[in-house]
């Protein structure tokens, strides 16, 4: 439907750097992005799961692999993705249940999702460094 409707002559202006996105839209976009990231990581995670339960040596290899600097960065990104997806998902479920629908509450909860996911990422990263 979008295609046929766009045949009229109205100008389309979709420069994301010049459109001021409301914070709820940022949360929604990041929800999609974080889901995509976790989807891309899925085969690799299944591979690690397989290796980790096959043998004691495999388990040790997984632990060693996860300590490589590049994979540490990927893990931090995936922790953020999971945290954001989870918190934003809970927010969407609450909005589906008619909780926090008005603009002020929705703005507040959107900022809360961003803050909680960043906080979770920092706590998990620091926790992993300390152990």
């Amino acid at each position: 439907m979008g295609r046929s409707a766009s045949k009229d002559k109205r100008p389309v202006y979709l420069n994301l750097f010049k459109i001021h996105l409301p914070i709820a839209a940022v949360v929604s976009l990041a929800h999609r992005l974080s889901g995509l990231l976790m989807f891309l990581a899925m085969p690799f995670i299944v591979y690690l799961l397989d290796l980790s339960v096959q043998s004691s040596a495999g388990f040790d290899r997984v632990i060693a692999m996860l300590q490589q600097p590049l994979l540490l960065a990927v893990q931090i990104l995936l922790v953020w993705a999971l945290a954001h997806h989870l918190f934003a998902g809970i927010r969407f479920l609450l909005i589906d249940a008619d909780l926090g629908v008005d603009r002020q509450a929705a703005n507040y909860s959107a900022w809360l999702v961003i803050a909680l996911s960043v906080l979770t990422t920092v706590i998990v990263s620091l926790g992993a460094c300390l152990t």
Partner: protein
Amino acid sequence: MSLYILEGLKPWVVQRVSAVYIALFLFYSLYCGLNVEVVSYIHWRGWLFQPFNSIAFGIFVVAVLFHAWIGMRDVILDYVHDIMLRLFFLALVMGVLVGSGLWVIRILLFSMVE
């Protein structure tokens, strides 16, 4: 009665029901993980292949596969408009999900007995 009754609503419901299960399983795993004293091969296997946990994990994997399919499908339908490209990406996503799912079934069935 049509077989396709609720057809439009079904993915919406599946997405939310799977989301709730995924969240509950993650909180349960987090709770177990935080109460662990030693991280070892024996403990890890013991946790995963304990009957309750392996079944809960199996359901979690099924929930993730459905959740990821609906989510990726929505994203592809929103951003990819060329019909052949759309088919290509949908098939690619389906391939990755089915492959991952079969792989996990293989892990759960064949790694359980050493």
